[in-house]
């Protein structure tokens, strides 16, 4: 038996319709999961649904504009909230990865509750998928990391949760997305806490800008190499800013700069992964471009860890 996306869609639209009598908001990052959930909920609720996207200041290059276009294309009611200052203020001086995730999660809910009140919604639809609640742990299950949409929710939250994708993994969500004609069906996964968990250590606008620039180069070069047939597109590929400074030499002068790790993995469901065997010529181009184009970075390393023992993201 294979996963039957069409049957799943019929079933979930019906379930959402039954669960939500009034209005609902959906937390939409523009990724595959939340956009798919938004389309499902949109089919069930029509105008009674409002999609809310938060620009946390932690997004990738051109991401907010891109998501805005996606939401317009989908034809759902939506609101774009710009909250970068609030997020950076809340994250100031925080380097512990779990604290970062909790702070970001709480902030999200604060904003969603505010929007829900204005819109008159009692329900919060989320694109939570199986690895989110599995890795968030609970009872016997250890917490590997706090997924903001599960373990980051306050115990006294008033909004009622609707999570149509809870039992699916990424490959199945993509199947649903394709069946629904969602434009971002093939987009690579991106964590809810965004670039905050790709800046190891303190999260400042400057450090986020470094990893954003490096990540854009990783994405461009890997996508170009894949379209030239040098490699297949990995499941996920990005840059991480490592809190290690090392010595370099730039035009006969000593520099002491930042280090970026490139991460690319192969997976189906995000629950196990192998590192991608990227051709050296592609790594070479990525390294040369990052160290030349992103001021402050003078060293690039490649992460060759599988999951387990590592996880895909560094935090």
């Amino acid at each position: 038996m294979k996963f039957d996306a069409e049957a799943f869609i019929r079933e979930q639209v019906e379930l959402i319709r039954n669960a939500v009598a009034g209005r609902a908001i959906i937390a939409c990052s523009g990724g595959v999961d939340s956009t798919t959930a938004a389309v499902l909920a949109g089919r069930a609720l029509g105008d009674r649904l409002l999609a809310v996207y938060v620009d946390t200041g932690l997004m990738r290059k051109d991401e907010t504009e891109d998501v805005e276009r996606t939401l317009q294309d989908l034809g759902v009611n939506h609101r774009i909230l710009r909250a970068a200052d609030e997020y950076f203020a809340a994250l100031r001086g925080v380097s512990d990865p779990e604290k970062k995730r909790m702070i970001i999660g709480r902030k999200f809910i604060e904003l969603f509750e505010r929007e829900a009140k204005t819109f008159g919604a009692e329900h919060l639809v989320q694109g939570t998928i199986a690895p989110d609640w599995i890795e968030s742990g609970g009872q016997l299950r250890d917490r590997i990391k706090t997924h903001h949409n599960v373990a980051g929710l306050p115990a006294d939250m008033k909004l009622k949760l609707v999570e149509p994708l809870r039992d699916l993994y990424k490959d199945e969500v993509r199947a649903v997305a394709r069946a629904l004609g969602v434009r971002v069906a093939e987009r690579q996964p991106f964590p809810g806490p965004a670039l905050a968990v790709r800046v190891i250590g303190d999260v400042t606008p400057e450090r986020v800008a470094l990893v954003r620039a490096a990540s854009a180069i990783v994405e461009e070069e890997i996508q170009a190499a894949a379209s030239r047939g040098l490699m297949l597109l990995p499941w996920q590929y990005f840059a991480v800013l490592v809190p290690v400074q090392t010595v370099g030499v730039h035009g006969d002068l000593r520099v002491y700069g930042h280090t970026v790790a490139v991460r690319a993995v192969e997976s189906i469901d995000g629950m196990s992964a192998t590192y991608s065997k990227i051709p050296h010529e592609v790594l070479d181009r990525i390294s040369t471009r990052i160290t030349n184009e992103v001021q402050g970075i003078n060293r690039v390393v490649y992460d060759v860890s599988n999951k387990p023992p590592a996880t895909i993201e560094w935090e």
Partner: protein
Amino acid sequence: MRVFVVDNGGQWTHREWRVLKYLGVETKIVPNDTPVGGLQDLDGLVLSGGAPRVGVDPSKMGRNGEYLDAFDGPILGICAGHQFMAKHFGGEAAPAKVPEFGKSLLNVREPDVLFEGLPDRFEVWESHNDEVTVLPPGFVGLASSPNCSVQAMRHRSEPIFGLQFHPEVEHTQFGGEIFRNFLKVCENPR
């Protein structure tokens, strides 16, 4: 066919549920304190892996012991489920000398229905701190890896199996086939 998964708190418990579902089986994840009376009319049971350190403190394994004694049908224990099975039947589980995480190579030493149609050596995915150090009486070791001598075991006459590696993980080769072979046993347990 109905085969349930007992949740011992594993990262891959839900993957076991998915693999069974994809194989067309009626399945459900149940907590490990479910009374054995609540597991009637099933054709088989999977005891999942999980965070409990069976080699150190098996107390978090709920009613797994009752299932092993009283469940009427084939049982497949995975990782912590496998280690607990060994301990419960009089063998031993302890912290592994070399814990395994990620890729490993399975060496099938004894032919068995579980590995029917599969090569003698293939890649499997691991994630364990403890391991079976002494086989329980009445059990036979089926497979090993370079750093773990009991990667698979079964009871000599009963349809009770244990696997240290994770057949439910996408990166394990022939994982679906191993489940299919277990389901064949469930279909025809004797």
